[in-house]
C-alpha cells in the first residue's frame, strides 16, 4: 500500500503539466476552456486528497511500512538521492490536512476566479504548488524536500506577480523571491553539510545520527533554522510577507495563511532529534519566534486592511509555534500548526465577503495607542529600509563599482582595438599627408594601441619602426620606399579581392587542406 504515496504528489503535477501545455499551445483558452481547467485541477487534487486519507486509514491499521522508495534520482559517488517518501506519522497527517485545504481552496477559486484574466495560469500555478507542498511534506530526504521547498517559492513568485503589468506587483515578487533565496541557500548548505558529515541526505539517517558533536549539530540545525525562518517569514525576513499580498485572495489564503507559511515549522518539527542535540539552535529558534510574535502583534495593531492584519496575525502565531519548538513542546507546536492552518485559511478565504457583509458598519472603537508605538507599528520597525540600507544598497554599490572597474580598467588593461573615432583621425591624417603636410614626420599615429598590452606592442612597433626607418630604408635608399608603395598598392588590391566572400571561403578550405 505504500506505493500509493507516489501518486499523491504526481496527480497535481500531471494536472499542472496538462493545463500548462494546453494553455501554451492554445488548446485550453478563454472562458470556454474554464470548465476543463477547473475540472482537471479540482479532480486531481481531490484524488490526491482521497489517496492521503486512504493512506492514513492503512497507516492506522498498521499496513504501511512507514517508508517507500520509488527510485534513484541522482547518483554520484556515495551521494545517493532517492525519490523516497515517508508514509506514516506526522508527515502523512500533515499531507492529508494540506491536501484537504488545497482541495477546498481550489474549489473556492473556481468561482472566485471566474472570468478573471489569467484563469488558466492561476490553476496551473495552484496545481504546481499543490505538487510542491505535497512533495515537501511527504519526501523522505532533504534534496527532494528542497525541490518542493523551492518550487513552492517560485509558485509564490508567480502568484505575487499575478498581475504582471503592474510595476508594484512585480517588484514585490522579485524582492520576495530573492529574500527567500537566502533561506534556500541556507537549506542547500544544511543538506550539503548533512552529506559531508553523515554521508546521507535521508531524513531518517539524519535524525538517527547520534554521533554528531554539539558544534556540528548546532551548525546543521542553524542552517535549517535559517531556511525555516525565511520560509515562515520570521525575523529578520518578516517584511517579505507584507509585500506578498499582491496576489489574488485565494492564493494568499493558501500560501500565507494556511499552507506555505507553515513549511518552516514543519521542517523544524521534522528535525526534532537534530534540534534536541543543539541547545544553541533551540535557543535561537525560541527567541526568534518570541520576537517575531511580539513584532507581529505591534505591527498588526496599525494595519488598516483586512488581509494585512490577518497576515500579521499569522506570523505572530507562527512565531509562537517556533517558540514552542524552541522550548521543546513539539507536540503542542504540531497541534498548533494544524489548528492554525484551518482557522487562518478560513479567515482569509472569507475576508473579501466580510467586507460585503460589513458594509455600512463603521468601526466604533479605535484602540488608543501611544504615539511612538503607533509610528513604529506603522513603519513596521523600519525593517525594509534597514535591509535596503544594510544589504541591498551595498550590493548594488559594489556591483556598480565592479561594473565600472570591468569596463574602464580590466577592459583597458586587456586592451581593446582602436575605436572608430581613431580611424577617422587616421583618415584626416591621410588627407593631411595628401596635402603635403607632415610628410617627413616619422611619428605615425596610425599604429595606436590601447591598454597595457596594446601600449607595449605600440612601443615595440615604434622602436622597430625607428630602426627600420633609420638603418634599413634610408640605408637602401629612397627607391625602396617607392617600391614599397607600389607593393602596398598591389597588396591593397589583393586584400580587397581576398575579402570577397568566395575567396574567404576558399581561404578557409585551403587552410584546412594544408593542415591535413
Amino acid at each position, binding site marked *: 500500500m505504500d506505493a500509493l504515496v507516489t501518486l499523491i504528489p504526481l496527480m497535481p503535477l500531471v494536472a499542472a503539466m496538462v493545463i500548462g501545455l494546453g494553455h501554451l499551445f492554445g488548446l485550453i483558452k478563454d472562458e470556454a476552456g474554464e470548465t476543463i481547467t477547473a475540472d482537471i485541477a479540482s479532480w486531481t487534487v481531490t484524488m490526491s486528497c482521497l489517496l492521503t486519507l486512504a493512506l492514513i486509514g492503512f497507516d492506522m491499521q498498521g499496513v504501511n511500512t512507514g517508508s517507500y522508495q520509488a527510485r534513484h534520482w*541522482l547518483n554520484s559517488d556515495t551521494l545517493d538521492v532517492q525519490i523516497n517518501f515517508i508514509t506514516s506519522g506526522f508527515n502523512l497527517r500533515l499531507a492529508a490536512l494540506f491536501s484537504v485545504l488545497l482541495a477546498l481552496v481550489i474549489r473556492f477559486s473556481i468561482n472566485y476566479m471566474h472570468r478573471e484574466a489569467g484563469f488558466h495560469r492561476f490553476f496551473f500555478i495552484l496545481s504546481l504548488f499543490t505538487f510542491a507542498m505535497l512533495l515537501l511534506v511527504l519526501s523522505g530526504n532533504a534534496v527532494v524536500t528542497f525541490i518542493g521547498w*523551492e518550487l513552492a517559492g517560485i509558485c509564490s513568485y508567480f502568484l505575487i506577480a499575478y498581475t504582471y503589468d*503592474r510595476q508594484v506587483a512585480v517588484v514585490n515578487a522579485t524582492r520576495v523571491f530573492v529574500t527567500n533565496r537566502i533561506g534556500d541557500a541556507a537549506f542547500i548548505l544544511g543538506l550539503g553539510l548533512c552529506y559531508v558529515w553523515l554521508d546521507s541526505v535521508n531524513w531518517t539517517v539524519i535524525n538517527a545520527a547520534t554521533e554528531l558533536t554539539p558544534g556540528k549539530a548546532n551548525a546543521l540545525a542553524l542552517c535549517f533554522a535559517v531556511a525555516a525562518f525565511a520560509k515562515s517569514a520570521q525575523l529578520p525576513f518578516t517584511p517579505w510577507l507584507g509585500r506578498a499580498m499582491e496576489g489574488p485572495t485565494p492564493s494568499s489564503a493558501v500560501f500565507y495563511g494556511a499552507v506555505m507559511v507553515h513549511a518552516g515549522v514543519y521542517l523544524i518539527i521534522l528535525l526534532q532529534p537534530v534540534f534536541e542535540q543543539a541547545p544553541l539552535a533551540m535557543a535561537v529558534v525560541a527567541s526568534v519566534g518570541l520576537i517575531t510574535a511580539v513584532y507581529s502583534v505591534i505591527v498588526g495593531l496599525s494595519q488598516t486592511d483586512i488581509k494585512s492584519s490577518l497576515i500579521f496575525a499569522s506570523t505572530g502565531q507562527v512565531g509562537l509555534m517556533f517558540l514552542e519548538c524552541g522550548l521543546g513542546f513539539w507536540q503542542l507546536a504540531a497541534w498548533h500548526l494544524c489548528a492554525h492552518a484551518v482557522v487562518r485559511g478560513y479567515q482569509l478565504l472569507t475576508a473579501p465577503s466580510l467586507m460585503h457583509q460589513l458594509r455600512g458598519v463603521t468601526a466604533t472603537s479605535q484602540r488608543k495607542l501611544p504615539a511612538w508605538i503607533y509610528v513604529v507599528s506603522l513603519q513596521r520597525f523600519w525593517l525594509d529600509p534597514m535591509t535596503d540600507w544594510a544589504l541591498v544598497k551595498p*550590493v548594488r554599490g559594489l556591483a556598480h563599482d565592479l561594473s565600472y572597474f570591468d569596463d574602464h580598467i580590466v577592459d583597458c588593461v586587456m586592451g*581593446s582595438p582602436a575605436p572608430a573615432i581613431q580611424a577617422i583621425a587616421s583618415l584626416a591624417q591621410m588627407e593631411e599627408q595628401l596635402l603635403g603636410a607632415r610628410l617627413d614626420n616619422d611619428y605615425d599615429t596610425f599604429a595606436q594601441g590601447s591598454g597595457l598590452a596594446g601600449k607595449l606592442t605600440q612601443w615595440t612597433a615604434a622602436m622597430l619602426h625607428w630602426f627600420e626607418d633609420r638603418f634599413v630604408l634610408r640605408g637602401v635608399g629612397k627607391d625602396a620606399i617607392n617600391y614599397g608603395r607600389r607593393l602596398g598598392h598591389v597588396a591593397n588590391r589583393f586584400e580587397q579581392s581576398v575579402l570577397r566572400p568566395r575567396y574567404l571561403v576558399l581561404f578557409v578550405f585551403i587552410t584546412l587542406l594544408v593542415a591535413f
Partner: protein
Amino acid sequence: MSNTSFPVLSLIIFVPLIGAMAVAFTHNIRLAKNLALLFAVIELIATGVVVQLFNAEGNSFQLVEQHAWIPSLNIDYLIGVDGISVLFLPMSALLTLMAMIAAWNSVQQLTRFHFALLLALEGITIGVFLALDLALFFLFWELTLPAIFFLIGLWGIGSGRRSAAIKYTLFMLFGGVPLLFAIILLAVNHASATGGSIPQDLSFSLPVLLTTPVPDSLQALVFLLLLLGFSVKAPLVPFHTWLPTVAMEGPTQLTALLTGLKLGAFGIIRFAMPLAPSAAIQYSWVLGILGAITLVYCALIALQQTNLRRLLAYASVSHVGLVIVGVASLNMQGIQGAIFQLLNFTMISGSLMLVAGFIQHRLGSTEAIHLGGLAKVMPKLTCFYFLFALASIGLPGTSGFPAELLLIISALLAHPSISIAALIGAVLSAAYMLSFTRRAFFGPITQTGVKQVQDLQVRELALLCVSALLILSIGFFPNSVQKINRATAEAWLNQLMFQSTFDLVH
C-alpha cells in the same frame, strides 16, 4: 582502447565540413539554406548514433581512429570519445541546428557563406571535442578562430562588429601561444623521459602523454600555461572582457554557440588537469579561488547590466566560474557536476541567447529601456524565456538544479569556504535574472514599437520546444546523464590521484 572498422567519428567531423563546401558552392540561396539544414540534421543523427555506439561502462577512449599525419614529428590523426566528451557531440550538433533555424530569415546578405561557416564551425568544434592528439587538437582549436572572426565581423548586429572581431581574434591568439608552448614542452618531455632523441621520439598523443611521468617543476609550468590558455577561452576573470563585447556586437546565433559551447572549461578537464596531475592537485586551490572570484565578480556585474545580451554574457561567465570551482574540488561530485553543467549550458545559455536574438530581430534592441511589458504581447516567448531563466538560476525541475547541487556539494567537501561563494552566487543569480526580467518583460508597455510586435513563429516555437523539453527531461531524470559519464569520471579522478602519488613516490 577499442577500434572499430567504420570511421564514424571522422564522419561526424567531415560531414559538416563537406556540407559547408556544398553550401558555399550552391548558387541558389534557398537551396543552399535547405542543404545546410539537411547537413545539420544528418550530423545530429550521426552524433546520436555515436552516443548509441558508446559503451558507458568502458573507462577508456572508444571508437578510436589513428592514422599517421606528420610522421616526422610523430603527429597522428588520433580521435576518440570517452564519457566526458560523448554527450557534447549531439549537444553541439543540436545547438548548431538551432542556431541555423534561428538565423533562417535574419541573415540577409552573404547568406550562403553564413550557413557554410556555421557548418564549418560545427565540424571544427566537434573536432576539438574528439581530438586526442595534442597537435591535432591545437589545429582544431585555432581553426575555430577564422570562422568565428568572419561570423562576428560580417554579420554582427552592433556598429563595432569589426573591432569586436579583432578583439576576439587577439584574445584567442594570445590564449593560443601558451597552449602551443605547453604542448611542445610535453612532447619534448616525453622524448627526454623515454631517453629518445628529439624529432623521432616526440609524442603528441594524449593517451601516451598521460602515462609519461613529468617532473614536478615542469608540471607546474605546463599546468599554468595550459590554464592560462584555456582560461582565455573559458573565459575566466580577468580574460572575460571579450565575451560581453562579442555578445553586444556579434550575431546572436554565434553568441549562442560561444556561450553554449564552453570549450575552455572542457579543455581544462580534458587536458590541463590530467596532463599535469600533481601540479593540478597542488594548485587546485588556485583554480578554486579563480573560479570563485569569477563566479561572484561576474554575478555582481550582471546585476548592473541593462542589456539582455550583455547580462547573459556575464551570467555565462559566472556559471563557468562555478564549473571551475567544481573541477578544482577534485571529487566525483565536482567532475560529474562540471560535465553536467557544461552540457546544461549548451541548452540553457544557448537558448537564452537565441531568445535574445528573437527580441533583437523584432525590436532592434535588447536594452531594458526599449523593452518593458513584453509578456503582454509575447506570452509564448516570455514563457520560454522564463523557463530558461529559471533553469539558469538552478530551479529544481530543470536540469540546472542537479548540476548546481552537485557542484555546491563538491565545493563543500573540498573547500568549504569556496562553497559560500557558490551559495552567494546562487542568490545573486536569482537577483540579476529576475530583476532584468521584471524590467524587460513585466510592467506596463511604455514603447509604441513593443505594442505591434509578433509572438513566436512556428519555426521558433519548435526549436525552443526542443530545448525546453531537454531541459525538463534531464531535470527530471538526471541519472541518465550521470550514467554515461560515471565510469569515465571515476577513471579521470583515479588517474589524477594515482599519477600524482606516483609522481610523489618517484
